[in-house]
């Protein structure tokens, strides 16, 4: 049972492509099941690694091409984005909304008391 759980642990690491410590490597060499599985998965890993490594290549001058395609002033956007990020915060939006509401109510009251009420008292509003 102990051997089986050791095999399971080692085989899991083999499948995940993790490096094995020396004791585990010795076990793989001694254990037929683990040895077969290791050979199998290593062959698969090497096939896929070759494909990924050889699939596409970085062309000469690629970094130059990228740099030529960049906008001239990247950092200029930084202060603007800070303001944007500040305005995007919920508490800032709530404060601005409250201030806006207070100003609107004050304007309404000012209109009522400075225009409507005096006009009504003079008989201008029916």
């Amino acid at each position, binding site marked *: 049972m102990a051997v089986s759980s050791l095999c399971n642990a080692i085989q899991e690491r083999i*499948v*995940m*492509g993790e490096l094995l410590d020396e004791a585990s490597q010795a076990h793989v060499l001694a254990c037929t099941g683990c040895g077969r599985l290791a050979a*199998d*998965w290593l062959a*698969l*890993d090497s*096939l*896929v*690694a*070759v*494909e*990924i*490594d*050889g*699939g*596409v*290549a*970085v*062309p000469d001058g*690629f*970094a130059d*091409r*990228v*740099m030529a*395609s*960049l*906008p001239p*002033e*990247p*950092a200029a*956007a*930084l202060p603007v*984005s800070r303001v944007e*990020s500040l305005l995007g915060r919920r508490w800032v939006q709530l404060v601005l909304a409250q201030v806006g509401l207070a100003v609107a109510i004050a304007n309404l009251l000012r209109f009522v008391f400075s225009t409507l009420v005096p006009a009504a008292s003079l008989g201008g509003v029916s």
Partner: protein
Amino acid sequence: MDDGFLIRQTLSGKRNAFRMLVVRYQRPLFRFLGGFGLGQAIAEELAQETFLRAYRNLSGYDADKAKFSSWLFTIAKNLALNERARSHQRLPHAEAADDEAESPVRDSVPSVHEALETGERRLRVQRALQRLPEILRSTLVLAYLKELSMDEIASIESCSVGAVKSRIFRGKQLLRAELVESEDRHGRV
């Protein structure tokens, strides 16, 4: 020089710092895009677009949320998935033709020796990778890059480390089954 320093330098207007980031990540990025089965020309286009988007949005990058490499690969992954979706729309019923169209082997024009030695085998591996479900292929390719930790892959894939391990295992199982089947069909791998 670590990524954080180079990013700060770039944001303060030193473009050469970004060049160093490009040079540092261009190779793993191309390997990643190649693993997606994208051809040379499309991989170049997407890699360039990845760096361009990273540059444009660098001020919004939050180092506390993800490593720069994870952020960069997330951009590349999204671009690659969009490109694949577009190419599938262009050729909805022609899987074989799609495989041919996206073949890096075709684009990279291998030498005769290369073609004889490895061309057929690579094509089979490539097709086996193409047949993997998108979610498994992306995780598997990231794992094969050997450049990223499990945590970083989990961050790119927006899943747990456990899910990453599970996807790698399932992906390799499917890949192996596909290659064994291919071997049976062709007599060798």
